[in-house]
């Protein structure tokens, strides 16, 4: 169909609630923040060293990005383009650390590296020379557990790169090393940038890791004021401040990605030849397994060991008492993922017809808001406007939707982009109406992409912590909340580890499904 109108009634029907739920919480915070006197705010900003804190967050996000790329990009190249031993297994395992939420990674490394932890005890010292409780420590953790983002995007791009381009470069007299630096890497730039920016935004908005590792960031400051005081104005004002900077970062991201996208290379007849590593093979092998050890094997081992420290019967009884929380997590995440997918499908369908332009753009804002800020704004906003949702599990689902519709949209759009419009037109010409054609042809064809999108939102919702802490109703804790409460009340001890293990395994299971189907090409998002 042609673009006859910019907005259809259906488009508006989708856009209006979207705007309502995304802009509402921010509007609420802005309104609350207005109560904050300017002079007072400036004084507190000075006392809080706010500029230093912003610099520190930027440093943290940058270090995280560099570290995640340093882990993920060489690994992607090694598994896709070289004769690395066991590269298939590695390629399959490499994205799995995404199943471990970074705050659980922080718990694990606290158990391992914190003063009095396993490693210092093993070495017979009180503490290690480098402290985990620092910006570097937080970046270390965040990078370890976000490297799959650049890995997935870069390995996907490497698989799609047209080998003819590299052959042309060889033909032009470039050595293999120069082909890598002057052709292959520049071609990867868009995916690399996309992956790097996902990680950057993650580091920028993180709450769990920095809080556990006592790094002062805007999110932890907001959290402290939310937790410790009755004050609305200051945390609201700080939230608005944080949101504004985040949206600026997001706009920068859109700008950079928008400009870089045209270089994306798609479609190649044959896979590119693998590069023989020769003597470097085993060094590369050690590197790859080193990455996986730090990000997957070690964390699982530590959690498993912690669990084994308690008698099995005690642990069993404990896990059973936590069963309702598991169910809470499960069904809200399932509902969130399903709703997100339905809405994303609606958006994809309408946007494919030019009927609703900026709905997904709006959600992008929701996706960039740190969970702490969203939670604070959403709680107040829902209470003011939709009291029947406030303090019910629906509030959690709304939070998941606001935060994670963007990845669902990306999955749907990626799937739709692979379909030529003529497929649907063929169905139309054979007597099916628009919806019938969508159901008979488009839906079955994009199903793999939809499954991937659903799993992505499910996984992200399962592990959401910051917003859930603030909007959960009484008696309705989720697994991440329980882990948090245990970790904060008692520390990173066996029972927190047991819950963390349950969560990781629950998340890993769908991930395994996702990966075993080898559904790639969807940018997994924060």
């Amino acid at each position, binding site marked *: 169909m*042609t673009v006859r109108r910019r907005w259809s009634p259906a488009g508006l029907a989708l856009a209006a609630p979207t705007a309502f739920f995304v802009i509402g919480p921010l509007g609420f915070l802005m309104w609350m923040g207005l109560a904050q006197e300017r002079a007072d705010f400036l004084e507190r900003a000075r006392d809080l060293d706010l500029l230093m804190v912003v610099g520190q967050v930027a440093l943290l996000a940058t270090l995280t990005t560099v570290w995640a790329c340093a882990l993920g990009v060489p690994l992607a190249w090694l598994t896709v383009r070289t004769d690395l031993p066991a590269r298939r297994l590695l390629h399959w395992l490499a994205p799995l650390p995404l199943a471990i939420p970074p705050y659980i990674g922080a718990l694990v490394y606290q158990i391992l590296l914190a003063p009095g932890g396993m490693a210092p005890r093993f070495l017979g010292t009180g503490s290690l020379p480098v402290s985990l409780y620092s910006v570097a420590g937080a970046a270390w953790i965040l990078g370890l557990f976000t490297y799959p983002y650049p890995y997935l995007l870069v390995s996907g791009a490497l698989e799609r790169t047209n080998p003819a381009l590299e052959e042309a470069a060889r033909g032009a007299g470039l050595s293999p090393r120069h082909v890598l630096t002057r052709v292959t890497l520049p071609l990867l730039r868009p995916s690399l940038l996309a992956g790097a920016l996902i990680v950057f935004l993650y580091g920028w908005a993180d709450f769990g890791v920095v809080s556990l590792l006592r790094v002062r960031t805007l999110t932890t400051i907001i959290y402290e004021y939310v937790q410790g005081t009755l004050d609305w104005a200051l945390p609201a004002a700080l939230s608005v401040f944080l949101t504004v900077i985040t949206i600026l970062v997001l706009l920068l991201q859109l700008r950079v990605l928008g400009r870089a996208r045209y270089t994306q290379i798609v479609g190649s007849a044959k896979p590119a030849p693998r590069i023989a590593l020769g003597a470097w093979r085993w060094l590369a092998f050690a590197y790859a397994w080193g990455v996986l050890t730090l990000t997957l094997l070690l964390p699982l081992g530590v959690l498993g060991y912690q669990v084994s420290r308690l008698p099995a019967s005690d642990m069993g009884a404990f896990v059973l008492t936590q069963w309702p929380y598991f169910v809470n997590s499960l069904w809200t995440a399932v509902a969130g993922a399903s709703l997100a997918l339905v809405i994303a499908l609606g958006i994809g369908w309408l946007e494919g017809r030019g009927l609703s332009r900026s709905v997904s753009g709006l959600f992008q804002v929701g996706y960039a808001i740190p969970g702490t800020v969203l939670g604070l704004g959403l709680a107040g906003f829902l209470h003011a406007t939709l009291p029947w949702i406030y303090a019910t599990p629906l509030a959690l689902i709304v939070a998941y939707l606001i935060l994670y519709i963007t990845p669902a949209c990306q999955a749907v759009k990626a799937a739709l982009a692979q379909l030529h419009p*003529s497929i649907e037109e063929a169905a139309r010409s*054979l007597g099916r109406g628009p919806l019938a054609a969508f159901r008979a*042809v488009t839906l079955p064809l994009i199903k793999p992409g939809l499954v991937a999108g659903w799993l992505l939102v499910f996984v992200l919702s399962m592990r959401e912590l910051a917003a859930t802490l603030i909007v959960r109703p009484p008696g309705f804790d989720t697994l991440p909340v329980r882990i948090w409460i245990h970790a904060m009340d008692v520390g990173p001890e066996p029972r927190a580890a047991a819950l963390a293990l349950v969560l990781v395994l629950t998340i890993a299971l769908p991930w395994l499904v996702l990966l075993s189907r080898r559904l790639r090409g969807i940018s997994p998002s924060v």
Partner: protein
Amino acid sequence: MELLTLEDVTKRYAPAQPPAVDGLTLTVAQGEILALLGPSGCGKTTTLRLIAGFEAPDSGRVVMRGETMAGPGSWIPPERRGIGIVFQDYALFPHLTVAENVGFGLQHLGRSGRPPRARQILELVGLETFASRYPHELSGGQQQRVALARALAPAPALILLDEPFSNLDADLRAQMREEVERILRNTGTTGIFVTHDQEEAFTLADRVGVLNEGRLEQLDAPETIYHHPATLFVAEFVGAADFLPGLVTPYGIVTELGVFADTEARRLGKKVKVMLRPDDVTFVPSSVGDGTIVRRDFRGSENLYCIRLPSGQRVHSSQASATLYPNGTRVRAEAHVIHVVTFPA
């Protein structure tokens, strides 16, 4: 009997741009095969999409069997127009078998009525043994046939083919062209196809419409299009042509290659261009000839010579494959024009 009429149809994609289809008027008769020919961007695919109902005209009407499909205040969506379409990329449904693809448009027949009809159509295109295959298991020609069968299955009155042979190898293309024509004629289906290949248009179509910048330059039988192009654009686009300057005199049109009869009774003293096809021009080698061979293109079944005349004007002449003259040969060129076609200079 006319099946389809476009009345002054205009379509613009963006207000700032020139229209993709500009005041198009044409009529297609029942059982006719019509080719829409033109360079890329001429609006031929848009015309097809307007007929199919994938685009709505900004003004004008699309009428089929007297019923307005699209026009001021009326709109029939594509699924209710009963028009079959063969897409350039075939657009076969990859998740359905060949039989299911062909049966896709046969919902009205019900679960039991579909397979016999699908089988019948598959026999027509010679693919009855491939019924349970999936599209990706077929060759390009087979996919094309499935696409045709799928479009024909609901027995549409009109079938639209968008560059139907452009994805096929040269020899397969000729074969499929014949086959498509046979099937359309046998089923009595009216067909409109879009192409940029004049040979394809000429061999397959009863009439050819030449489009340029959204406007219909000429709509005629292939022979008329070739020999009596209505416009300079048609003359240039269809087949090779040289244009020889001439002057209208009482004795005819005087040119460097002689005098041509002025069949169109032009005003005396008017400067014109006479169209010369390469097969209109012959030459004999002659030491006193004032033409020079400057280039020879070997075309397999013929040689195409380029001859420079004293004025610097070049004309082309097609000669038998075996006649070989080196470049620089002095020749005397002659033109034997049966249909003199001139354009204002």
